[in-house]
C-alpha cells in the first residue's frame, strides 16, 4: 500500500498544471517539499514567507544532501524585490532598500513588472518549477503574482488554512474560493510525523482536535489524556512553567497571544524563561531614535537615562543600577560622550544579574547596536540598530532552551514541550491550533474551563 506521503510527492514532481497540498501541522510538509525537489529535474524555486522558514528549508535540503543546483530558496518578498529593483523603470518601485512599511510597495511593483513579456524568458531560463510554502499566509497580491507564474512554470502551493494567523493585516487568500479553483488538490498530509518518535498518542489526539476545530465543534480537553490541563490564573502560569522546567528535559515554549502577556509571564519567572522580541523590535528602535536626537543635542544625561530604562525593561531585578560601584566609571565615560562603552556596560550588568534577565534578546540587540555604531559605518544609531536587527533577521535568533513567546512568532517552530499559557486569550481557532501543535513530547493548556469553544 502506497503511503499518502509518497502519493503527494509524486504528484508534486509530475504536476504540469498548478497543484495545492493541505498539510496539518507536523505532518511532513517540509519533508515533502524537499523530497519533491530532489526528485524533480531542473532547478526549482522554493518560496516561503519568513527568513526562519528559509533557514528551516535550507537546513533540510542540506540534511538530505540535495545538490544546491537543484533549488533556490528565498522569501517571497526578497525574491520579488530582486526583480522589482532590477527593473525600477518598469516596476515603478521607488525604494530599492525597503524598510518596514516600504515592503508593501514591493508587491504591486513586482506585479507590474511581471506583466512584461520578457519575464517569461527569464523565468523559464532560470527555473523548471516553483514551490510556495505557507500559502495560507499569502495576501491577495501575492496570490495574483503566483497565478501569473502559473502561465509559464509548474507551480505547487502548500499550506494549512487552519494556521493562517496573519490574517489581520492585508486580506489573505481563501483556500476554498481562491486556491482550489486554480490549484488542483492532492490528498492532504495528515500523518503526524512530528510526534512519531516522541509521543505518537499526542499526535493522534491533536489530529482529532484538528477535525473538531475544522468542524467548528467545541473541544473538551478532558477527552485527551495526553494533554495536561490547569485552570488559569496569573499565578498558575508561573507555577506550570516552573513545574515543566523542573520535571522535563528539552526545549520548552510557553505561548501567549499578546506581547505584554508574554513579557509579564517571563518577568514573573525571574529569568528562568526568555521572552522573545518581535522582529521589528519596536522598543529598541524607538529608544534609539530618541538617543539620536539627544546625541545631536549632546544631552548625554538623557541618553544615559534612555539606556537605563530600556535595560530595566529587560530585567526582573528592580535595582540594577543603584549602588553599583563597578558601573560608576563606565557611566562617567558615557556622560563624557563615549558611546562605545555601552556594550561594556551591558556586559557588566549581565555578569552581575544575568540570571534575572528575561529579555536577553532585547539587551543583546542593544549591545549589538552600539557595537555596530562604533564601527563608524553609520550616520545614526538608528541605522546601526536597523543593521544589527537585520542581521538577526537573516541569520536567525539565538536559540534558547526555554522561551515565552507568541503564536505569531513561533509558528513553524518545534519544541519538546508546549505550554498554552492562556487559551481564552488566543483570539481564534487558528492561533489555538498553532499553539497546541508546537510541542512534540508534551502539551499543557491553561484556560478558564477544559471545555474550549473558540469561535472562528
Amino acid at each position, binding site marked *: 500500500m502506497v503511503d499518502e506521503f509518497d502519493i503527494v510527492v509524486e504528484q508534486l514532481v509530475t504536476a504540469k498544471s498548478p497543484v495545492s497540498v493541505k498539510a496539518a501541522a507536523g505532518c511532513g510538509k517540509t519533508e515533502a517539499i524537499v523530497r519533491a525537489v530532489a526528485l524533480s529535474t531542473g532547478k526549482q524555486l522554493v518560496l516561503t514567507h519568513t527568513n526562519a522558514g528559509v533557514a528551516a528549508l535550507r537546513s533540510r535540503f542540506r540534511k538530505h544532501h540535495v545538490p544546491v543546483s537543484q533549488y533556490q530558496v528565498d522569501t517571497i518578498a526578497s525574491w520579488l524585490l*530582486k526583480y522589482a529593483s*532590477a527593473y*525600477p523603470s518598469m516596476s515603478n518601485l521607488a525604494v530599492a532598500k525597503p524598510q518596514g512599511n516600504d515592503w508593501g510597495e514591493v508587491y504591486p511593483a513586482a506585479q507590474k513588472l511581471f506583466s512584461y513579456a*520578457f519575464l517569461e*524568458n*527569464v523565468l523559464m*531560463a532560470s*527555473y523548471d518549477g516553483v514551490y510556495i510554502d505557507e500559502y495560507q499566509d499569502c495576501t491577495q497580491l501575492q496570490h495574483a503574482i503566483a497565478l501569473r507564474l502559473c502561465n509559464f512554470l509548474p507551480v505547487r502551493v502548500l499550506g494549512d488554512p487552519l494556521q493562517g494567523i496573519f490574517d489581520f493585516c492585508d486580506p489573505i487568500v481563501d483556500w476554498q474560493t481562491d486556491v482550489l479553483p486554480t490549484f488542483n488538490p492532492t490528498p492532504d498530509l495528515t500523518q503526524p510525523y512530528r510526534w512519531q518518535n516522541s509521543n505518537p498518542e499526542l499526535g493522534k489526539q491533536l489530529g482529532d482536535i484538528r477535525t473538531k476545530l475544522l468542524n467548528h465543534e467545541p473541544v473538551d480537553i478532558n477527552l485527551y489524556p495526553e494533554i495536561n490541563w490547569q485552570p488559569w490564573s496569573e499565578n498558575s502560569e508561573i507555577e506550570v512553567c516552573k513545574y515543566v522546567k523542573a520535571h522535563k528535559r528539552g526545549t520548552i515554549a510557553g505561548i501567549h497571544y499578546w506581547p505584554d502577556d508574554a513579557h509579564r509571564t517571563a518577568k514573573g519567572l525571574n529569568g528562568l524563561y526568555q521572552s522573545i522580541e518581535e522582529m521589528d523590535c519596536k522598543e529598541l528602535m524607538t529608544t534609539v531614535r530618541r538617543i539620536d536626537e539627544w546625541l545631536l543635542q549632546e544631552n548625554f544625561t538623557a541618553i544615559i537615562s534612555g539606556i537605563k530604562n530600556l535595560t530595566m525593561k529587560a530585567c526582573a531585578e528592580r535595582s540594577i543600577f543603584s549602588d553599583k560601584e563597578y558601573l560608576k566609571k563606565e557611566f562617567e565615560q558615557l556622560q563624557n560622550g563615549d558611546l562605545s562603552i555601552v556594550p561594556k556596560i551591558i556586559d557588566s550588568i549581565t555578569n552581575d544579574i544575568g540570571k534575572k534577565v528575561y529579555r536577553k534578546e532585547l539587551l543583546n540587540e542593544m549591545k549589538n547596536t552600539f557595537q555596530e555604531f562604533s564601527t563608524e559605518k553609520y550616520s545614526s544609531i538608528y541605522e546601526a540598530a536597523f543593521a544589527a536587527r537585520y542581521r538577526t533577521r537573516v541569520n536567525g535568533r539565538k536559540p534558547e532552551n526555554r522561551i515565552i513567546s507568541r503564536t505569531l512568532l513561533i509558528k513553524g517552530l518545534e519544541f519538546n514541550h508546549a505550554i498554552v499559557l492562556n487559551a481564552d486569550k488566543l483570539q481564534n481557532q487558528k492561533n489555538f491550533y498553532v499553539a497546541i501543535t508546537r510541542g512534540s513530547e508534551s502539551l499543557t493548556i491553561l484556560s478558564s474551563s477544559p471545555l474550549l469553544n473558540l469561535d472562528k
Partner: protein
Amino acid sequence: MKLRKLIIQKFRGIDNLEWEIKSDLVCLVGPGDSTKSTILLALEYLFSPNWNLPITDSDFHQMVVQNPIIIEAIITELPESLLSEEKFGLYLGFWNNDGGSKKNQENDDDHIALKIRLTIDSDLEPVWEVMSFQEDEKEPRRISSTDRQKLGVAKIGSYVDADLAWGRNSALSRLTQRDDLTKIPSLLAEAERRVLNSLAELDLSLLEMAIGDIVPVAQIMGINAQDAFHAGIDPLRVSLRQGAISLFDGQLPLSLRGAGSRRLMTMAIHKSGVKEGAVILVDEIENSLEPYRLRHLIRQLRPNDNDNHQVLFTTHSSVTVVECIASEIFVVNSQNGNTKVIQVSVDLQNIVRSIPEAFLCRKVIICEGKTESGLLLSLDQNFWQNKHEKETGQWRYLTMAEAGVSPIESPKSGGSEAPKFALAMAKLGYEVAYFGDSDRDLNPSADCMKENGIDVFLWDGNVEIERRLCFDLPQNELEGLITLAENLNDRNKVWADIKKQFSTHISPEFCSSWEGLISLGDERKLRELLGKAADDGKWFKRRDKGESLGTFLSGYLDMMGDSPTFRTLVSIEKWCYG
C-alpha cells in the same frame, strides 16, 4: 547572437567610435590605417573566451595607459542560458531597430538585449562585465569565459590549423562537445594510452646499443640505474590532446590543403558551431581565395532572414565589394582617432556594381569624362613621377598609387551623374576632388560640392579639355596633336572633322594639311577651330586615348609655363601628391 551597437574608446588607433550595426553582413572598407582591422580585433577581444589577452602599452590609444581601453557592445538574440536569474536575467535591456537601446520593453519588436563591456586599464588585466541598462548605480556583473564562449564569436585568423584539429580551445572541439561534454577528454586520453602502448612494443634494441658504453662511465660519475637503463617512449612528447587528432580528407590531413581551403573549412566549422547563431569575423576575407571562391563564400556566409548569424569582414578587394549590396558596405574612416563607420546608401548601388574600386581608395578624383581620367593616369606615370623624384622633399607622395588616389570616371557616359557621385563619396568620408570641363549645369552645383569639402577643378574658360589644350599647347606642337589624333583614329575621319570646322573660314582644298590650316592666318582662330574639331569629333574621348593624350602632353607640359592648362594641372598635382 546579433551585434547591434559597438562602442570603442582609446584602443590602438581609435580614440572613440560609436557604431550602430545595421546589417547582418558587414563589409568594412576604408583606406589603410583607417582602423578597420582594429574594429575586428576589438570585437575579437570583447568576446574572447581566453582569460588573458596579449595587451601591451602600445594597445592604448597614443600609448597613454592612464586612459583605459573600453570596448562595449549591445547584443540581442541571446542564448537562453544567459537569461537566467543567476546569470544576467536581472541585467537585461531592450533594442529596437528604429529606436536603439532602451530600458523598458514597450513594443512587440523590442528585442531582449545585453550590454557587454571589456575594460583594460594600466594594470593590463582585462575585465569583462555585463552592464546594467538602468540609470542607477547598479554594479556590473562579471561574465565568465564560458559564458562569453556561448555567444559564439569566432575570428578566422592566421592560425586556422588549430581549428581543424581537436585541440583544447579549437572550434572543432567546441562543436563536438556541444552535445557530449564529457566524453572527449577521456577519449583522447584513452587514444593516447593506446598509442603509447603500441609504441612500447617496438623493438628499440638498436637504439640501446650505446647504453652499454654509457653505464660504466655513469657509474664512475656516481649515477646508478635504479632499475635498468633502456630506451623508452616519453609520454610528454606523445600528447594527443594538443591537437594531434585532426580533420582528414581520406588519407591526407586538411592542414596540407591550400590556405584558401583551410580558411573555408574553418569558417564552415564556426558557422555550424553555434546553434543560436554565430558571429564570424574575418580580416581580409579575400585572402588566399580566387574570385570565384570568394564570391561563393560571401553568398554562403550571407545570413538568411531566419538565421541568427552575423558576418563581419574587412576587404581590400573589389571582387568582394561587387558581391555585396550597397547597404552591406560600411566605410571606415578615422581622423585623429575619431572613427566613423558609415553605411553606403542604396543610391550608390550602381557604383558598387560598376566601379567597386572607388570604395577602396583614400582619395578619389571624380572625372567628368574618360579623357580626363586617362589623362591623369598617364601624367602620373610619365610626367609627375619623374618630376617628383627630382624634386625631393617637396612632395609627400611620389605616385598616385602611393597617395592612394584613384581617378575615376563617372559611370554613365556624358558625365552628368559625376557631381552626384562626388557628393555621395564625400559624405562617406572620402577625400574627393571633382575634375571636369565646366560648371555649366552641374547638379549638384560646384558651390554645393565645395561646401561639402570637395575640391573642384575645372578648365578655365568653361571649355572642354580638347579645346583648352588647343588654346594652351605651344604652337609648334599643334601639328603633333593632329598627328596623335590621326594615330588614334581613322585619318580620314580626323581630317573630315577638321574640314567641317575650317571650311567656313578657308577654302576646302586647304583643309587637308597643316600648311593649309596655317593659311588661316589667325592663330587664335586656328586654335579655336581645331579645338572644336577635336571635341566634336571625339578624338580623345576614351580612356586609352586620354592616356595617349596625357603621354603626348607630358612632353610639353614644362613648356606650357603659365597657361591655364598648366595651372589647373598644377593644382590637381598639389591635391594628389601634396
